[in-house]
């Protein structure tokens, strides 16, 4: 029989500590929808998504009710659209974005990811046109998310793509300036992008994935913080153990949901992404975990060490709880989506340079950071290049999701509402990397890539 204390612990986690399964993401391959006639391709895309994901939202809601655990998002990731756009070079790929948006609305998911291109070694047919079209696509759609992979440990960093993405991010913000520049919040630039990531905005269904798959992203920073608070003044080894045990429990809940969703939808289970994904809700913050470990405020010296411990312990706890682990798997540090990070950025305890250091040891990168509206494109490209270099050398995923706040300056605020949150505009080093960025070419793959 189940122990009463365990039952009450689970209920307390759900009621008071924001335990939830963050997302069930259905990955759908669109490779069989490729057609040289863009209208035919779009019809196939729409039909396939609606057919496969017809019951996704309802199934997610049913599972949530049966197990009493909230499942926040039901989402879809598709094959990078650049691969479909390659077959119809004369047409603007924006039509695909509109189709994805319509399909997302039809099946009731709040985001569909995959308006993407993989250009880490260079541009293939369709890639450049897709990247060019991203700002327009994100401004005229509501639920479409976009990502571009510009580097990898194996391939190095495509500096032509880095230079281009500086402009694309700026333009995405400019075209949505009347909506707090939200276009840029739906665009991620990756190095070492995972093909099975269930989290937005960077989810896409990689070419190596099966026809259809269910990936689940877990969450629960509030639960980890509460467990540490209960433990009091223990030493740091014990802190790591508490995080591991808690991550195990959180991930097991995610694994159960993943198995059940896979069974009910008759779609193979892919992976569980072991992530601590914060929300702007008070008590659901990764920054608060770091502060619980003993920092006066997130961003203080010691933050990187605490985050390294947290990220590692989350993985160690989670990996045994799931039969397949993948995606990003680690602690996220999106500034505008984390109450503690927002406070730390407002008080200037947390700066962009500290965040860059933190990304070397956490799961993703510079995420949801508002920067001054007059930041030049080549400075944004410089930030992307730095971040990609950290990912490339450390054989890890890094990403950049910056929001140039058009018409605003450092110290003012942007507010997206909902899970994307709000936050202060952070200072950026104004010195120009222009000559470096304009050189173009490719940064060679590092020694770490030669593992064979």
């Amino acid at each position, binding site marked *: *029989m*189940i122990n009463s204390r*365990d039952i009450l612990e*689970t209920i307390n986690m759900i009621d008071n500590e924001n335990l939830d399964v963050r997302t069930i993401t259905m990955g759908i391959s669109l490779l069989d929808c490729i057609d040289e006639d863009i209208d035919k391709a779009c019809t196939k895309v729409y039909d396939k998504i609606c057919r496969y994901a017809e019951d996704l939202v309802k199934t997610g809601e*049913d599972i949530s009710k049966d*197990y*009493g655990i909230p499942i926040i998002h039901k989402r879809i990731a598709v094959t990078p659209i650049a691969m479909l756009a390659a077959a119809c070079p004369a047409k603007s790929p924006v039509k695909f974005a509109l189709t994805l948006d319509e399909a997302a609305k039809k099946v009731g998911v709040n985001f569909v990811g995959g308006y993407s291109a993989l250009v880490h070694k260079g541009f293939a047919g369709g890639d450049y046109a897709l990247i060019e079209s991203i700002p327009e696509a994100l401004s005229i759609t509501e639920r479409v998310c976009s990502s571009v992979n510009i580097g990898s440990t194996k391939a190095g960093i495509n500096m032509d793509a880095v230079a281009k993405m500086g402009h694309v991010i700026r333009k995405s913000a400019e075209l949505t300036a009347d909506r707090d520049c939200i276009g840029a919040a739906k665009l991620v630039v990756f190095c070492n992008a995972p093909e099975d990531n269930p989290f937005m905005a960077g989810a896409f269904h990689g070419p190596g994935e099966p026809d259809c798959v269910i990936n689940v992203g877990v969450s629960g920073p509030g639960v980890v913080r509460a467990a540490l608070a209960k433990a009091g003044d223990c030493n740091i080894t014990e802190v790591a153990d508490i995080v591991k045990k808690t991550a195990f429990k959180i991930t097991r*809940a995610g694994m*159960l949901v993943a198995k059940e969703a896979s069974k009910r939808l008759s779609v193979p289970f892919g992976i569980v992404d072991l992530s601590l994904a914060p929300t702007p809700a008070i008590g659901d913050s990764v920054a608060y975990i770091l502060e619980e470990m003993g920092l006066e405020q997130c961003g203080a010296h010691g933050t990187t060490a605490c985050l390294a411990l947290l990220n590692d312990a989350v993985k160690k706890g989670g990996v045994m709880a799931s039969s397949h682990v993948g995606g990003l798997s680690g602690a996220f540090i999106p500034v505008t989506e984390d109450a503690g990070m927002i406070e730390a950025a407002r008080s200037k305890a947390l700066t962009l340079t500290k965040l860059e250091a933190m990304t070397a040891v956490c799961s993703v990168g510079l995420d949801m950071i508002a920067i001054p509206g007059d930041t030049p494109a080549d400075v944004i490209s410089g930030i992307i290049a730095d971040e990609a270099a950290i990912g490339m050398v450390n054989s890890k995923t890094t990403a950049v999701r910056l929001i140039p706040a058009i018409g605003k300056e450092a110290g003012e605020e942007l507010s997206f509402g909902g899970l994307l949150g709000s936050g202060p505009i952070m200072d950026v080093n104004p010195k120009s990397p222009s000559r470096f960025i304009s050189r173009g070419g490719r940064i060679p793959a590092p020694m770490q890539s030669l593992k064979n």
Partner: protein
Amino acid sequence: MNAVITVLGKDNVGILAKVSNECSLVGANIVEVTQSVLQGMFAMIMFVDITECTVPFSELVDKLTEKGDEMGVKIHVMHEDIFNAMHKI
């Protein structure tokens, strides 16, 4: 198949009776109950076998949640697998 019903909140007359009555109306068989009142706070954990339940599980969840709201207590009805998954290896 077992479900776990937990009731937490301010003690009142007839909480256990009302919850048990709801269960019997839909054919959910009570297997085990532990209940205590500490400093006026009522806490009950009830295991029910829902194999013979005459309504879909989600309906049972709704009925009992509603009943809890009427009585001013928080009622959770959850499939036992969630607890097994989180607390057993």
